[in-house]
């Protein structure tokens, strides 16, 4: 039962093969038993999940036209506020925070009858590429528990890969959906900036953050995105455009589709094994009729520097609200106001978060603003322009998701810059606000690697169509870490 996809569970529930309560109970039990090996969950919903499941079963029994995913279990990254269910953002700062409201996206999935099993582990405030910065302990990669699952949505990626949940939400500020999807051998989609509401999603970097689905197939991503996406009047940056039926175009032919391969994505630093898998994937697309050409994203090499100004700068002020006044961690016995601020924040935040707050504060401070923040936003425009120019000639861009397969825990924790390079291929899409996804494209030494597709604004349907056709032609997405990589 745990191998069933979102779509398969939906069909089984409709056919009456089992109830939502049954699969919910099954998966809750499975998480309790198996997750000790991965640490992919921070909180479990328990009874409230079973209540939601029972409600979904009742709805199915009474209504003829229930939403397709009614009763399908799901998990949210612990960055999304969930009413009456603890929301920590992977931080000691919010260790005991129980929001009295839910994120808009969480409400939308709930309204469609999806059952919330629990909240997945993540890098603290989504700052990390290995899930080692979580206050609640590192997450382990189901393909090799000595290795990282990637981050920051590492809990969601690991939980989906380990068959603890069929799908989970993630957020992607610089690659935090796509990179862990790649390292855990699952599929993950970062939609166009503004496609999914940010209301109730705890902010890391406001102009980059975007929520999206993680699952075991492009088809599942399509069904999940349809529920997650949509205009939200509570988010000023939300896009007011209709949500298409993403599943409807999955089976369209991709013959004649123009794919661009950025030469900069195959330069130094790309693992040979990963490169081979991506090249193989490109050949598969060619065999399906896609027309492949080389393109140039000449400023993409500056994406990491730009990102490590913009994201920490925005984060440094987004995280100012954690001051120990209205919610969150407050230090014991503050001797005065200044002491309360300083100790609450120093004790409540972890090292990576503090480091980024310092870098961001520095980049915005008097005398440095023009050289850092303003400069970075200018180069950001150049990075976006590269894409805009290329999308006049190609329909999507294809390349590696990240430079190499998973690596052992602790390997990069002392070298932040090495860790930051994990997102070298994912960050450009965030800076430009473009949709991008990662799907499994092979194994290197028994560890999965992904291939990335980047699309034009609001062209999620095209990316999902490409990914689905690729998955019809390949088996990589069906490999199961629990059976040693067999299907």
């Amino acid at each position, binding site marked *: 039962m745990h191998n069933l996809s979102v779509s398969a569970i939906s069909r089984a529930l409709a056919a009456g093969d089992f109830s939502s309560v049954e699969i919910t109970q099954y998966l809750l039990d499975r998480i309790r038993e198996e997750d000790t090996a991965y640490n992919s969950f921070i909180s479990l919903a328990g009874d409230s999940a079973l209540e939601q499941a029972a409600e979904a079963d009742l709805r199915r029994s009474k209504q003829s036209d229930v939403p397709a995913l009614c009763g399908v279990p799901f998990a949210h990254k612990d960055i999304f506020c969930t009413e009456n269910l603890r929301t920590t953002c992977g931080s000691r700062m919010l260790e005991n925070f129980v929001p009295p409201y839910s994120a808009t996206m969480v409400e939308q999935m709930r309204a469609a009858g999806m059952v919330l099993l629990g909240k997945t582990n993540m890098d603290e405030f989504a700052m990390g590429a290995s899930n080692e910065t979580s206050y609640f302990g590192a997450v382990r990669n189901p393909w090799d528990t000595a290795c990282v699952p990637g981050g920051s949505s590492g809990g969601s990626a690991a939980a989906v890969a380990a068959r603890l949940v069929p799908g989970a939400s993630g957020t992607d500020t610089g690659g935090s959906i796509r990179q862990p999807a790649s390292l855990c051998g699952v599929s993950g989609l970062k939609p166009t900036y503004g496609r999914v509401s940010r209301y109730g999603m705890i902010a890391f970097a406001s*102009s980059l953050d975007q929520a999206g689905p993680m699952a075991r197939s492009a088809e599942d991503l399509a069904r999940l995105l349809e529920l997650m996406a949509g205009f939200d009047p509570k988010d000023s940056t939300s896009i007011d455009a209709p949500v298409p039926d993403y599943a409807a175009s999955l089976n369209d032919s991709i013959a004649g589709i123009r794919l661009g391969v950025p030469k900069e994505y195959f330069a130094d630093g790309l693992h040979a094994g990963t490169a081979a898998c991506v090249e193989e994937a490109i050949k598969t697309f060619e065999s399906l009729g896609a027309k492949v050409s080389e393109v140039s994203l000449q400023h993409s090499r500056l994406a990491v520097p730009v990102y490590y100004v913009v994201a920490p700068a925005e984060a440094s002020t987004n995280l100012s609200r954690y001051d120990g006044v209205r919610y969150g961690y407050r230090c014991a016995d503050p001797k005065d106001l200044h002491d309360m*601020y300083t100790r609450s924040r120093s004790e409540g935040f972890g090292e990576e978060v503090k*480091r980024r707050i310092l870098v961001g504060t520095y980049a915005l401070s008097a005398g440095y603003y023009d050289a850092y923040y303003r*400069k970075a936003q200018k180069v950001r425009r150049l990075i976006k322009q590269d894409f805009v120019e290329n999308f006049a000639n190609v329909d999507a861009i294809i390349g590696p998701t990240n430079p190499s397969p998973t690596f052992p825990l602790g390997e990069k924790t002392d070298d932040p810059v090495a860790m930051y390079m994990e997102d070298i291929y994912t960050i450009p899409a965030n800076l430009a606000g473009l949709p991008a996804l990662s799907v499994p494209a092979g194994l290197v030494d028994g560890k999965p690697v992904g291939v990335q597709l980047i699309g034009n604004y609001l062209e999620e349907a095209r990316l999902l169509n490409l990914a689905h056709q690729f998955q019809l032609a390949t088996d990589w997405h069906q490999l199961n870490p629990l059976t040693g990589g067999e299907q």
Partner: protein
Amino acid sequence: MSVDRSDIEQVAELARLRIEDNSVDELVSKITSILGMIDQMQATNTDDIEPLANPLEASQRLRADVVSEADQREALQANAPATEAGLFLVPKVID
């Protein structure tokens, strides 16, 4: 650009973060290496390029001036470290 101990201490004060004495040096070296990586962008010519603050460059939408939020003080203060008489308590504020 490189940073020294006093830069870090000054920024930490702005950010209300305390840095333990024994970790300042390590922090200075890590942040220096991060800034070194960042400085790769400095060589790029950005004359006449407008900063891009929002990827979609959309315009602000306006909300109708309607009171839509009811009093939820009790629920909202359930997470507060210290309250009294409906107020959030903090160590004495001095003007």
